[in-house]
């Protein structure tokens, strides 16, 4: 009889362990499935961004006002002018070599002072002057560009 009771309690102990295991397994399985669903959803969302790139754009008005637009989402293949127009109000004229920016956010038109664009050179850690018109330069993913109101 005592042996029978012993086996009964051993069975109850095993039953407790089984119930705990089953509960935790079921819970972690559903959690796993939930995270798989979230992962797939995130992947689908990310696929949309294949058509876009990120660029950091600085507008330096030369009077101490510096306006950074970090991680600006730009359509792949967009030029600097269009990217700048996404974050600022830009006025420009068309010339032989391309667009010439005259005002950004209402700043511009001062004598001997012009809007020049620069690109951050991460190798030399300095700003390189843009060598082409802003509507000719095609942005690359991760570009850091600056518009600096420069007096000559």
């Amino acid at each position, binding site marked *: 009889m005592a042996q029978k009771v012993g086996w009964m309690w051993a069975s109850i102990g095993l039953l*407790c362990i089984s119930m705990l295991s089953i509960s935790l397994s079921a819970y972690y399985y559903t959690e796993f499935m939930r995270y798989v669903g979230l992962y797939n959803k995130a992947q689908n969302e990310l696929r949309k961004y294949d058509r876009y790139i990120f660029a950091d754009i600085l507008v330096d008005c030369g009077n101490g006002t510096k306006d950074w637009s970090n991680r600006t989402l730009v359509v792949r293949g967009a030029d600097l002018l269009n990217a700048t127009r996404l974050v600022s109000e830009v006025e420009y004229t068309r010339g032989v070599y391309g667009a010439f920016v005259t005002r950004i956010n209402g700043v511009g038109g001062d004598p001997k002072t012009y809007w020049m664009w620069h690109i951050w050179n991460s190798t030399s850690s300095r700003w390189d002057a843009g060598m082409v018109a802003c509507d000719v330069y095609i942005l690359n993913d991760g570009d850091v560009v600056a518009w600096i109101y420069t007096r000559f």
Partner: protein
Amino acid sequence: MNVSSKNLSFVAIMTALCVGSNYALIGVPNVKFMDLFVFVSGYLAGSLSGVAVGFLTWLVYGTLNPYGFDLPTFLTTSIGETIYGVAGGLMARSGLRLSSSSSATLMGRSYWGTSLKLGMLGFLLTFVYDLFTNVVTGIVFGIPLILWIIQGVPYTVAHEVSNFFFFLAGGNVLINAIRRIMCKGGES
């Protein structure tokens, strides 16, 4: 149920103990000493006394609760809680003998053997209680049952495992201690 003044005062004291400990542990969801106290009440004073302690505790704690009052949940937990009292009474009658908690036997095999049995009982009863309350509230609120039960697993596991340890560590000691107090005072 023996309606003696001793029994009634026992039920009142145990209910007060349950309610007080519940409010003290209000910030810890699903970890409460109440289930152990209700089981001990049933074990020492009979199933009906245990049922009374469980129901009366929920009558107070379920009504004056900072998380709010909800009638279906209140009824479910009140009825569900009584299984600890019923089980306590049945265990005492069916001969789950407890060893003394004196220092001589505290480290003895029989003491830990009985404590382990109590721990397993606590776990099983809590499983049944959680299943019952989850099923009833799931049906009442119209939530898919399997999903409702699975989503509640972290809480039910916390409840079951904590009760396992409470029953394991406190069951034997509490029953012996209260039994001694009961033997000393008042009518038998």
